[in-house]
Each structure stands twice: as C-alpha cells, then as structure tokens.
C-alpha cells in the first residue's frame, strides 16, 4: 500500500502548480462570455491538442479500459481504436464547426444547432440532453478518483476524502479563469498522464523480465485473451454495441466539439489534431498493455481493482506509483472540469440567451459548482440510476449526430426534424436502458437509438418546412479558402 501522507503531499504539490497556472491564466481574461468560455478564440494547437486529449481520455482509460482488458482481453484495444478512428470525423467537421462559429459567433455547439435550424428550442433540447447524459458521466470520474485513492491506500484515504479532493480541484481550476485555466491545466495534466503511465508500464514490463518475456508470458498464460471474442466479453455484438456510439464521440460530445471553437487559425487546428492522434494512440496502447501486465502481476482480481492492485504489487517503485496516481487523478479532473465548463456554457448561452455577458459568466460558474456537487454527491452515494445514465452517455449523446451532420450537409433538415430526432432518440435510449433493462453491451440499444434518431430526423424534416430564420450553413467558399473538403 502507498502511504496516505505521500499521496496527500503529492496532491498538494500538484494542486499548487495547478493553482499557479489558473491564477496566471486569469490575468489574461477580459470579462466577456466569449473570452471566458473560448479564450477569445485564440488558442494555439499544442495547448488545444493537449487539452482535447486530456478531456477526451479520462480516468476511463487507466481504470475501466484496463479493467476491460483484464477481464476480456485484446478486444478492448479494438474498441478504443474504433473510437480513435472516429477522430477522422474531425477532417470533415472541424473546419465547418470552426468557420461557422467564427462567422456567427457561436460559443456552444447547442447554440450552433439552434441557430442553424432557426429554433432556440433545438439549442435548449441539445443542452438538456447533454446535461442528462454528461452529469452522470462526471459522477463516474469522481467514482474513479475514489476507487483509485482508497484502493492504493488500503482505504486509509476514504471515498469521501478522495471525491472532495477531485471536486475541489475541478471546481477551482474551472471557476478561476474559465477555458484558459481549464485548457492550461489540462495541457499540464496531459503531460502528467502520459509521462506517468509510460514510466509505470516500463517498470511493470521490466518486472516481468522485459518485453520478450512479457509477450511470451501473455501468449502462454493468457493466449485466449489475445483473440476475439476472447474469454467471452468481446463478442461481435458487444464490440459493435460499445464501438458504434463512441465512433461519433468527436461530434456528439460537446465538451470536445466545443474545443473546435477555441482555435486561432487552421494551422493551430491541424496541429491540435496531430497532437491528439499521437497522444491517443500512445495512451491507448499503454492502457491495454497495463491491463495485460496486471493479469500477470496481480492475477485473480475483480477487474475494477486491477490498477490499484498493480500499483501496490511491488513491481512499480513507490514514486512512479504516486506519479501515476496523480496521472489518473489528472485524467479524471481534466475531463470533469471540461464537461462542467461546457455545461455551464450551454446553460448560459442556450437557456439564458438574453442575459448580459456578466450574468452569463456568473450562470456558468453556478452551473460548474452544481455539476461538481452533483457528481460528488452521487459518487459517494453510488446511486444506481446515475450509473445507468453514465453507461448510457455515449449512446445517449449519439442522438445529436443526425442533426449535426444535417446542419452542414442537408439544407432540407428542419427544426422539427432536429427536435424529433434529439428528443425521440434520447427518450428511446432512456426507455430501453432504464425501463426495459436493455444493456449497453447489447447492440440492439445503440442500433435502435441511432436508427430512430436518424429516421425521425429525415422523416419529420421531409414532412415539415425549414423555418424562415434558419441559417444557411453555406461555407463552401470559406472551406475552399482554407483548403478543407
């Protein structure tokens, strides 16, 4: 076990560095909503890329993905790489999001949809769906922090203490300077995440006798886990059920699609994407390797305990284990604060459209506090309904995809079609998963929700007419100017 004093000291140093960064970031703020939520649309590619990576790659990677590898084998790698391939959607949509946001001044992705279809109700519904599915997802980040800190200290750091620590860090780093403090702390956290994970895996593999012995040991003792479906978890149905909604993550999850609004130019956009790709592939390979290393160094565990068990197995030096604890804490906090800020922006811009800039910033800050409090309370209470909604988040947020694609590629798409698609799809997702008990591991759920959302969008759009105030996202001339398809 790791000594609680060592963990608390490391967290204190980490928090101090983050506070310094956040305070420095606050000096650049000008007091407008655009500045608070988007940093004046002036971010460079490196900070934006690291922030995007830290936001999208959460504690899920080194806690859940590692556990899925531990339990089911190599299918976890394929699932995460299908998500990774979904970053290809950025080639199509990143320039469109960026150009539209600059031309019409959008701050949240929901606001963009509302303007495109000429209906504030589209924006409100998209914001509401994001709230319903992302707040429980925040709870899982908090729960991850609790599981980790209590696991590596043998329960000496309690769940409540761990959750309170995560909540404090996420809230302060968001409230101080909005996107600037979030993005700057994200960037540092991304470096901590990748660096600590890389170090830890090198020590784990060394403890197993090097890469050759590690590979041989896996093939010999865990050969079944190197194939699909493996021991049973990764059937084709489960693989499709999990991969399909995650493939669309880049355009369905507002906390990452909003990052496309913050860049200063197309060169920064290109650099951001390249950083995310490099980080993503490396981090994915590390997480899966970590799962296989855990199978050899700490066999016979419940999968959710694989990471704490590996960290305390004696194979990883204590200082590396502490660093990795900080890395996982960073992964959770960076995802949590980004989601909280995006939800704050959505409430401020989409539910309080006519408020003054100061009021919109204040409203966003209140929402950030509420989101963090919600996540903390439910992480401690371990409410089943929240766990169900969190598991449903990827499939639930997929309901915005048809309206988002239609916004740029189908002029005939209407506000009624978007409302039916988002509302109907979300209601179906909740009904199937929470009332009928259809598991997120069952492909029928993702296929039904995606199919219904798409079908409703097309059908209702054909039966209705676009609103007079709907914007025409004709960006062709601008796209040609910046060399995008």
């Amino acid at each position, binding site marked *: 076990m790791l000594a609680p004093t060592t963990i608390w000291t490391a967290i204190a140093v980490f928090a101090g560095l983050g506070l310094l960064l956040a305070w420095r970031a606050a000096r650049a703020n000008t007091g407008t909503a655009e500045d608070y939520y988007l940093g004046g649309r002036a971010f460079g590619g490196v900070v934006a890329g690291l922030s995007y990576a830290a936001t999208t790659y959460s504690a899920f990677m080194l806690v859940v993905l590692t556990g899925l590898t531990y339990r089911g084998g*190599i299918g976890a790698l394929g699932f995460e790489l299908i998500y990774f391939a979904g970053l290809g959607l950025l*080639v199509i949509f990143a320039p469109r999001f960026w150009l539209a946001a600059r031309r019409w001044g959008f701050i949240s992705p929901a606001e963009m949809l509302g303007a495109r279809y000429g209906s504030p109700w589209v924006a409100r519904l998209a914001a509401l769906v994001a709230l319903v599915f992302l707040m429980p997802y925040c709870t899982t980040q908090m729960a991850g922090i609790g599981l980790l800190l209590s696991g590596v200290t043998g329960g000496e750091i309690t769940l409540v203490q761990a959750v309170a620590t995560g909540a404090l860090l996420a809230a302060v780093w968001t409230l101080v300077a909005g996107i600037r403090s979030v993005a700057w702390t994200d960037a540092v956290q991304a470096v901590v995440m990748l660096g600590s994970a890389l170090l830890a895996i090198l020590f784990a593999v060394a403890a197993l006798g090097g890469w050759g012995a590690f590979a041989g040991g896996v093939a010999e003792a865990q*050969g079944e886990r*190197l194939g699909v479906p493996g021991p049973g978890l990764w059937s084709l149905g489960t693989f499709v059920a999990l991969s399909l909604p995650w493939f669309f993550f880049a355009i369905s999850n507002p906390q990452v699609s909003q990052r496309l609004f913050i860049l200063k130019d*197309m060169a920064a956009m290109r650099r951001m994407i390249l950083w995310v790709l490099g980080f993503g592939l490396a981090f994915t390979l590390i997480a899966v390797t970590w799962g296989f290393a855990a199978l050899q160094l700490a066999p016979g565990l419940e999968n959710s305990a694989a990471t704490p068990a590996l960290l305390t197995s004696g194979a990883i030096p204590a200082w590396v284990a502490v660093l990795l604890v900080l890395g996982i804490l960073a992964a959770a906090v960076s995802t949590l604060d980004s989601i909280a800020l995006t939800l704050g922006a959505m409430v401020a811009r989409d539910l309080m459209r006519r408020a003054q800039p100061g009021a919109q910033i204040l409203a966003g800050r209140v929402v950030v506090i509420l989101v963090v409090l919600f996540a903390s309370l439910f992480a401690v209470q371990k409410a089943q309904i929240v766990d169900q909604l969190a598991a449903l988040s990827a499939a639930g947020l997929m309901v915005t995809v048809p309206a988002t694609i239609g916004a740029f590629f189908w002029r005939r798409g209407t506000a009624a079609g978007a409302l039916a698609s988002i509302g109907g799809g979300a209601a179906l997702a909740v009904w199937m998963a929470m009332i009928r008990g259809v598991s997120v591991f069952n492909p029928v759920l993702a296929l039904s929700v995606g199919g219904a959302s798409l079908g409703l969008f097309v059908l209702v759009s054909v039966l209705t007419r676009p609103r007079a105030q709907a914007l025409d996202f004709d960006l062709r001339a601008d796209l*040609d100017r910046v*060399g995008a398809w």
Partner: protein
Amino acid sequence: MAKRGGFGLWLGALALLVLAGVAVPYGVLAGGQGWAVAGFWGAFGLAVIVLIALGIRGWRDA
C-alpha cells in the same frame, strides 16, 4: 480559391478502414491466440493516423 479534390476517395478509405477494423479480427483472425489481432489493430491505429494526416494536409490560412 480552387476546390480541393479527393474527398470521395478519402471518405471511402476511412469507411473501408473502419470496416476492416471490425471485420478482419472478427473474420479472418477470429479465434486466433497469437499476437496477430494485436498486431493488426496496432497497424490499424497507425493507418488511422496516416489517413487523417492526409485529410488535413491541405489546410491553410488564407
């Protein structure tokens, strides 16, 4: 400014790549117990990077 070509080809390549990312491990390589599936998915990840890099190669600031 001239319109950039090749989008259809690129999109088709992405679709084929994603399809292969599922079909090859669950078809040709199904049930295998060596490192073939891991190797395939590793190559798949690199191919994704190359394809996306090709897609954003032409971006410029006017």
